């Protein structure tokens, strides 16, 4: 069969004695021929400007997850030893340990998000002012407020003597605060108490505690990142903070509805100037010559 078609094709070529397309036969050069005189030639679309088909990328529903079997993991004390070496000479309250928790999760859908009060707060520069009736002042001061009172505090604010960077107001003092006309001073500083920011409260104790210790964490691109300690923390303190964050995270993940599944993928400890170490969940250092007590000297 194949041989006959080939034969026919060659025969057809032989029979085409005249050119397939009519050409302008004249003595004038080809480029002088007006275009109207030229026969209408429609060029075939083959080749030339045809667009290449765009390769379709496979869309992944989940964030990329790596094979963690070959990854070197470290105990908490080992990671701390390295990080303390990298951070040597940095002020210990400025440099922070940070935890990155990678989750196995879909790219879309609900995210893990919560506030947590760590056993050892990372932020220590929170200074709270409390506007409250004078009889509650002593209690507020005991909770750690640096400035308390009602009229005395208003006077101090008017004089520009602002020693706090967070201001809360007891519900009973709300009217007094309104009368004091401090919006012009406190507003631009973002210190004006309002119910919207939950800084007007009837339970001073709970609010102060939340302001001092609570930190927010939230999942972004499948990773929860949070500062979990200052460089000056002892291994025990850091371990307590890490544990409390992890249990809170697990609690949050369990609370999500059944249609979304999230699982822990990787827990990584890093620091402000240091590299990142995957943790393996153990605490003790692997080097026998080192004990956790060695890792709490002054930095």
């Amino acid at each position, binding site marked *: 069969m194949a041989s006959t078609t080939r034969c026919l094709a060659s025969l057809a070529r032989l029979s085409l004695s005249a050119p397939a397309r009519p050409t302008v036969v004249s003595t004038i050069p080809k480029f002088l021929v007006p275009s109207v005189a030229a026969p209408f030639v429609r060029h075939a679309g083959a080749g030339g400007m045809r667009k290449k088909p765009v390769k379709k990328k496979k869309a992944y529903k989940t964030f990329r997850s790596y094979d*963690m079997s070959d990854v070197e993991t470290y105990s908490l004390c080992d990671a701390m030893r390295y990080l303390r070496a990298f951070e040597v000479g940095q002020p210990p309250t400025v440099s922070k340990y940070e935890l990155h928790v*990678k989750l196995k999760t879909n790219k879309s859908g609900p995210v893990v998000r919560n506030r947590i009060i760590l056993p050892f707060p990372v932020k220590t520069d929170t200074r709270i002012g409390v506007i409250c009736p004078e009889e509650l002042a002593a209690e507020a001061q005991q909770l750690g407020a640096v400035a308390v009172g009602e009229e005395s505090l208003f006077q101090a604010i008017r004089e520009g003597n602002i020693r706090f960077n967070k201001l809360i107001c007891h519900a009973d003092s709300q009217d007094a605060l309104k009368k004091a006309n401090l919006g012009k001073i406190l507003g631009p500083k973002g210190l004006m108490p309002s119910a919207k920011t939950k800084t007007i409260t009837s339970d001073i104790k709970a609010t102060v505690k939340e302001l001092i210790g609570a930190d927010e964490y939230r999942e972004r691109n499948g990773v929860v990142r949070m500062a979990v300690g200052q460089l000056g923390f002892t291994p025990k303190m850091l371990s307590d903070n890490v544990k409390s964050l992890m249990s809170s995270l697990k609690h949050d993940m369990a609370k999500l509805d059944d249609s979304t599944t999230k699982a822990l993928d990787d827990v990584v400890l890093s620091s402000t100037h240091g590299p990142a170490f995957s943790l393996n969940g153990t605490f003790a250092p692997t080097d026998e010559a080192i004990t956790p007590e060695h890792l709490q*000297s*002054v*930095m």
Partner: protein
Amino acid sequence: MVGVIRRMNKLNALLGVRNGPGAAILPSEVTRIHLEFAHKFNDGHMGPRKFWREALPRLKFWNPAVPMVVNRSHDQSGPATLSLYFREPGATVQPDSAMPSSSTEGDAKAPPPAEGEIVVTIDMKHRRSDMILKDFLAKSGAVPVKPTPQEESLMRDVQELEERGKVDRERVKKMIDHEKREKALMAQAHSEAAAIKAAL
């Protein structure tokens, strides 16, 4: 989050904090170390800075229990000194006694030696970091740490990776440059065509 492989390659470079200049174990008599110098390098503060950046992390890794405090100030004309605190033979010194923590504002001055302590100071001003380290090792009696055969082979791997990276970087740069050049040519041609059109 940074990929695992890239992270592991970076961690292999941690060999650099275990080995190299400054990887040495201090004798148990050394109780603490204090460094003082300025933030910027002029007026002879380059050597101390380099010493802090390069040698001190290695020393800290091998001697995690020894407090090493760096006091940086903004006063360039100020001193650059390293203070080594030794325990006198037979004496017991309270750990971390009155040792301030590192500061960037120059307010963590070297404390006076506690009872049973002696101080040896090294003037670091206008000196290169390797000379400071040499002096430091001699005065402290520290024993340098030698890399294990395993670490040596790992070091070779890291170096190989670095060399391969260099080749790759050049190749990719060539590609990117070529692309950029073509783009620039096209843009120029387009603008010229537009100019001609506008002139007509």
